[in-house]
């Protein structure tokens, strides 16, 4: 164990790469999820079909295989992505597809009365979605998005197979250099857990913020236990 602890700079560098990968992939995946999710829910027939194809194709293809494609096969037909880009692309295409289903489901779950009201008010489609449907749908999306974000973090471990020096990659290197399998894996297990907790705190914060935005702030509990939250809320406005 001491040998592994001694090599902490290596592990920290790996953790930083893992965090970067997670954030980049999450941003790209979010854009994809929003785009394909929204057109999948409210688009015309052709748009819906395109969204369907994207979701089914990338939801059904293995991240690792996708990554191998981008890393080994594409250079032979004309594109070379840097390993990091290949990793981010493979992960975000995959998780964007999962996310698109979450977005679609959330939009469908907004009460129909809300939609009917926008029609009654003669709002154009863009305004309906942007002003009424999406703000309510976002609140429904956040918990499953939190799940996906943590899954994405853990899925980044496969990039160690395409020469990106992430946390898992560093753990493998330490294993080979020291032979201490158990210690190396315990160390990275803890580090993944810590990163996941930070991500989940972030999602929780977003959930609270969205609820407040919609005037759905949990009443009694929030009032009783978190006067600080009220304070911050006031400060932000």
């Amino acid at each position, binding site marked *: 164990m001491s040998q592994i602890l001694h*090599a902490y700079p*290596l592990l920290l560098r790996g953790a930083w790469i893992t965090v970067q990968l997670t954030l980049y992939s999450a941003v790209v995946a979010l*854009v994809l999820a929003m785009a394909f999710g929204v057109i999948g829910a409210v688009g015309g027939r052709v748009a819906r079909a395109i969204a369907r194809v994207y979701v089914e194709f990338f939801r059904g293809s293995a991240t690792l295989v996708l990554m191998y494609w981008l*890393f080994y096969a594409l*250079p032979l037909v004309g594109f070379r992505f840097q390993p990091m880009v290949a990793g981010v692309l493979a992960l975000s295409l995959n998780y964007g597809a999962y996310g698109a289903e979450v977005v679609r489901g959330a939009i469908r779950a907004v009460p129909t009365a809300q939609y009917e009201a926008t029609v009654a008010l003669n709002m154009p489609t863009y305004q309906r979605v942007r002003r009424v449907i999406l703000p309510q749908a976002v609140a429904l999306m956040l918990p499953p998005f939190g799940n996906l974000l943590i899954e994405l973090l853990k899925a980044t471990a496969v990039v160690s197979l395409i020469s990106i020096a992430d946390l898992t990659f560093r753990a493998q290197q330490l294993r080979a250099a020291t032979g201490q399998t158990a210690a190396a894996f315990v160390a990275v297990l803890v580090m993944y857990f810590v990163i996941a907790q930070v991500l989940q705190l972030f999602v929780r914060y977003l959930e609270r913020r969205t609820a407040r935005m919609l005037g759905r702030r949990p009443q009694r509990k929030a009032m009783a236990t978190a006067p600080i939250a009220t304070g911050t809320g006031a400060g932000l406005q």
Partner: protein
Amino acid sequence: MTSTRRDFLRSAALLAGAAPLAAACSTTDPAKERSGGGTLARAKQQGYIQVGFANESPYGYTDTSGKLTGEAPELARVVFKELGIPDVKGVQLDFGGLIGGLQARRFDVIAAGMFVTPERCAQVAFADPDYIATTGFMVPKGNPKGIQRFEDAAKKNVKLGVLTGAVEGDYATKLGVKKDNIKTFADQPSAYEGLKAGRIDAIALTRISLVDTLKKHAGAPYEVTPSFIPQIGGKPQYGAGAFAFRKADSDLLSAFNGKLAELKQSGRLLGIIQPFGFGKAELPGAHTAAELCKG
């Protein structure tokens, strides 16, 4: 009001994320990609060459400070420096992914102590060998199952651990070990853990790797059997490790071979690879890649 600010923040975050990604993409010319070549000139000009390694101690691995080292990378440093390329950078892949990575130009040389085999010769251009390895088995102390050769393993229905893409799996199959009894592991530590957990009865690998693994687990109840050279159809299978290049990089290959021959003649080779457990018995002698490619 709030939504405008949110819009702004959201698009700013997206742009910030997208910018580095866009900057990191590159396209290649497919024709040039397939023909390859020009690596020597490019490496000299940019001042470094990228080598692929499999994180297999002691052939090519990263030490606990993150520095690339091992028999092949250290030898690469000496040879390339004398060829006018001052720096060697490592790209780590699974052993089984090295040839694919070389062909996809993820790096320019395989520096992993890869054995020269006829199958691999069809895909890459090997330099002359820089060491000869003999095979051994890691078994529980006292070798209760009496495994000395692959034939013993076949007869006694022993479960053998081998590494992905490594030659031992091939030897084992050809010498009669049943496919079900060959377990493939991604790397040495995994194979070692497999042995410890009782998933396999023995690891088949080069003596050098096994001794190296055992060294890291002082006092472990295992031993390495006396090394041998497997014979297939009466032909000895020399496990000769060499650097591998893309076929198109013939200038780089011949420059490398020239320097390597110098190191062999002057006796400097031994000094470079000795720290990694290689001895006089592992020196390659006069074996050439051409000879080994014939099988």
